[in-house]
């Protein structure tokens, strides 16, 4: 009879699929480890020359002369950090306001439609932000915003000197516009994860919806919100195209935001084509890539810790 005849081999055959599936999918997963390891390997070995030549001084050196092979990363690190901080300064309050409105205050229908729009905004390619940066944002800054700022805050060191359009300031503004959608969507989700009983408790005591949000919901979600800010920071640090197009690409450290600057990602994008493989210049660019990688790994790590500790710690 068929069942008895096949039953010894059949179940074995069927079960044999499980270890096979486990192994095959596990191999795909290991591939990710391999790729990441290879990435690190190439960044490390590819930058051996300048690491031996300049050591840690590379990070603090401020001269950049490819012809004389004198390289210091400070102008790029400075530009990257300044543009990102400026972007956060603008994007965090605006993004948080949005997230609070969408998660707590807005009527459901309006919230859904606006959330959808803002998520689409996050999908706009960075080269398009760059395009608009050059032809729309910079002229507006030049004709109206910066003259007004200088008129009021002109005494501050950060608003000194002439404004030529392309500058650290312009790059910071375009970055701010680019990271707002990320802050909004991550913070909104974190606010929505706050348990409903927290809100109800406050509302039952007679708090207004704003008081509930500001005194109960936001404090509860604060760690997670910090996490979202760090995530946005990591994105801003690594952003290449839009920044390259409006920052001015001048390797100088200037206290004024109105002066042109340079960022790590931008210098890699701009100067790579001028280098040849194995040459000091290209290896320096790879080392800059390594610096950028290390920066984003640390900041992403902090972001994830913050978000995890909020989700896990307050169950």
């Amino acid at each position, binding site marked *: 009879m068929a069942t008895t005849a096949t039953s010894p081999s059949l179940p074995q055959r069927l079960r044999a699929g499980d270890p096979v599936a486990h192994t095959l999918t596990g191999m*795909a997963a290991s591939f990710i*480890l391999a790729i990441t390891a290879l*990435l690190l390997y190439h960044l490390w070995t*590819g930058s051996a020359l300048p690491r031996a030549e300049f050591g840690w001084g590379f990070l603090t050196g401020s001269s950049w002369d490819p012809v004389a092979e004198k390289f210091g990363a400070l102008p790029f690190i400075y530009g990257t950090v300044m543009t990102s901080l400026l972007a956060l300064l603008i994007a965090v309050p605006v993004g948080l306001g949005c997230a609070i409105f969408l998660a707590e205050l807005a009527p459901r229908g309006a919230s859904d439609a606006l959330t959808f729009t803002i998520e689409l905004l996050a999908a*706009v390619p960075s080269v398009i932000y760059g395009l*608009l940066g050059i032809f729309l944002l910079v002229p507006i800054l030049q004709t109206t915003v910066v003259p007004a700022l200088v008129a009021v805050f002109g005494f501050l060191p950060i608003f000194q000197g002439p404004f030529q359009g392309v500058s650290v300031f312009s790059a910071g503004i375009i970055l701010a516009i680019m990271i707002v959608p990320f802050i909004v969507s991550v913070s909104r989700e974190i606010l929505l994860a706050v348990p409903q009983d927290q809100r109800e408790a406050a509302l039952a005591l007679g708090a207004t919806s704003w008081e509930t949000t500001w005194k109960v919901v936001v404090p509860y979600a604060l760690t997670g919100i910090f996490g979202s800010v760090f995530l946005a920071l990591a994105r801003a640090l*690594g952003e290449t195209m839009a920044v390259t*197009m409006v920052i001015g690409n001048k390797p100088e450290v200037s206290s004024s935001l109105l002066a042109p600057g340079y960022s790590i990602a931008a210098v890699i994008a701009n100067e790579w084509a001028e280098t040849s493989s194995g040459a000091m210049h290209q290896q320096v660019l790879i080392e800059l890539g390594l610096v950028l990688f290390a920066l984003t790994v640390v900041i992403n790590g902090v972001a994830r810790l913050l978000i995890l500790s909020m989700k896990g710690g307050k169950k």
Partner: protein
Amino acid sequence: MKLSFRRKAVNAVMLTLTGACTFLVASVLLVILGYLAWNGLASLNLDFFTKLPVPAGETGGGMAHAILGSAKVLLAAMLIGVPIGFFAGVYLAEFGDGVFPGIIRYTTDLLNGVPSIVIGIFAYALIVLPMRHPSTLAGGIALGVMMIPISLRTTEEFLRAVPVSLREGAMALGAGKARTIFTVVIPAAKSGILSGLMLNLARVAGETAPLLFTAFGNQFWSPGWMLATATLPQVIYAYAISPYEDWRRQAWAAGFVLLVLVLSVNAVARFAIGRTTSRGRS
């Protein structure tokens, strides 16, 4: 009474302020779309989609080579990145307890956070250097590596969302774990995984930085997979910073085309995900 009035006023003011923030941010999308349409639509004609560029300084020509180049680079990226991410996602969703899967999750997060320009350096060292010249394939590998983490995450998420009752139903009929996964769980998560794939493609379709030294660019057609190729985002960048008026107009047109493509794929995928998840919950 006076205190209550103050509290109500604060409430109203903050509602208005945060609402204004939101409308301001959302309206940026309209500004972007409108401005690109305003500047780009005039340069959009049949030539744009069918012709090669003309020499610098002359007017006319199109971006057919970049449109085809982008399509090929994306196809290569998808073929490289999606299977790895998908199977690794199956692994994490179905066999994902313990130390090793934890390491994989951490590594995936790490890879996801790597700036795209650094991925470009990596693909250069991996492919361009040994081959000695940039190529469609190198661009595809750069974008493919960028697709892996998101592909993994969406696969894992949608597989985990499949109800336990379906798995039990299959196992109660004598199906082994592998069989259950491939004949019941994955088909049940199919539409979500596909939408995730579309979002993922739309995301890398606009990437420029990793293509600068992998696909590089080309003024002509790029037959096969081993030659440098133009791509839409790379041409937008090159034309935008060029001194020629006609090229800039074409950059606007290309930007408009790219944006409409990316946003419509996004909208469709998000709509599909919204529908499947709300159906799953009911």
